[in-house]
């Protein structure tokens, strides 16, 4: 009855890929903001806050992203709030992203010699001043490559939003596959689009890593 040309397939996939990109962007920005807050909590020398952050990381690194999606999707509504597949996906991806970024950034901050903190303290700087003027600028340089590298995981993570019904690239793929029954072609195209989205990120992460390692 309805005929899909290759052009139709590609057009629809690319249309859906826009949602993948948007979802990735929002989730990545959300994850970065939450991770920044958590990193700050972690740097305070309050052991209770540090423990809470550790539990947070354990929870969201120790459970499947798929489960996090399901739980956000069905759990938030149980609390009496409306939540769309889009918001649930963003929420889950934000939690997931932040848990990994906090860990990555901690590694980066830990690579800074203890002497940097001590020298700053001896010059009379406050905790926040040390963070802002000494630690962050240096940690940022180290962190940028692994952070960009992790963004690939976020893009790929958005594929799971298909399971809670959000129509992004993967979901569009299964729908189109059903309508056209050309699984080999459709899924290959889906894979290629993901590759085109992710590979530049992987590549720039590698280049950044080289660049910053050389100049050290």
């Amino acid at each position, binding site marked *: 009855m309805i005929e899909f040309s290759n052009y139709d397939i590609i057009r629809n996939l690319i249309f859906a890929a826009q949602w993948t990109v948007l979802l990735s962007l929002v989730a990545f920005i959300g994850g970065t903001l939450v991770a920044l807050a958590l990193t700050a909590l972690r740097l305070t020398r309050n052991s209770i806050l540090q423990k809470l952050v550790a539990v947070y990381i354990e929870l969201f690194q*120790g459970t499947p992203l798929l*489960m996090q999606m*399901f739980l956000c999707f*069905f759990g938030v509504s149980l609390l009496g709030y409306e939540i769309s597949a889009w918001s649930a996906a963003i929420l889950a991806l934000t939690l997931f992203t932040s848990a990994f970024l906090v860990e990555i950034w901690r590694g980066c901050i830990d690579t800074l010699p203890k002497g940097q903190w001590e020298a700053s303290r001896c010059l009379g700087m406050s905790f926040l001043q040390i963070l802002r003027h000494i630690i962050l600028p240096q940690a940022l340089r180290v962190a940028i490559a692994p952070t960009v590298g992790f963004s690939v995981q976020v893009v790929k993570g958005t594929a799971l939003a298909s399971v809670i019904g959000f129509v992004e690239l993967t979901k569009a793929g299964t729908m189109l596959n059903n309508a056209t029954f050309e699984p080999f072609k459709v899924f290959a195209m889906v894979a290629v689009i993901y590759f085109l989205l*992710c590979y530049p990120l992987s590549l720039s992460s590698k280049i950044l890593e080289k660049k910053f390692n050389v100049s050290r």
Partner: protein
Amino acid sequence: MLYFGDLLPYSDVFFGGLITTVELTVLTTFLGIALGTLCAVLRQYGGATPRRIVASYVELIRNTPFIVQLFFIFFGLPAIGVMLTPWQASVIALTINLGAYSTEIIRAGLGSIPKGQVEAAKVLGMTFRQTLTRVIFVPAFEKIYPALTSQCIIVMLGSAVISQISVEELTYAANLVQSRNFRAFESYLVTALLYLGLAMMMRYVFKLIGKRLFSFRESS
């Protein structure tokens, strides 16, 4: 509002799913690390062509979502005449996935071995294969063991997706139960906790194994 009592009649289903997830994880951890080791050796010491092939494989897998890889293997391959059962398809997909990530990790380990170690083995008359297995592997794996552990856990958690092709693992169990008793949140919450337990257990088991493998670090 939350009621977990409705889950009790399905404890068998959860248990069955848990077992399947564990089986899959154990199997693919072994296969994946073996594949990764092979590829890492090719990438580090092989000729130009094998190196390029391995590099392409790694990039391809690392830059596409696992669920798409899975669908491609399960639904796409029959179109070219390769028919796999859901179980086979998942084992292959998981192995290929872990293989790609562990290639990168293990290669870093191989790269961390000082050149002098290889030369020392060479002047003692060992073959390349003997050098690899007797001299290089243990210290190389020791270096990257924590990273490898994390990656195996990530792959285990990623296996949740294979419920999509009807493999009756833990997430499948959660989906099945919630389709029967309509307790979606409760089912998923319990399942998430089971995964968390599995992840912690894996880390523990890896640590024990590591202690044995790398016992030379703390003894005497």
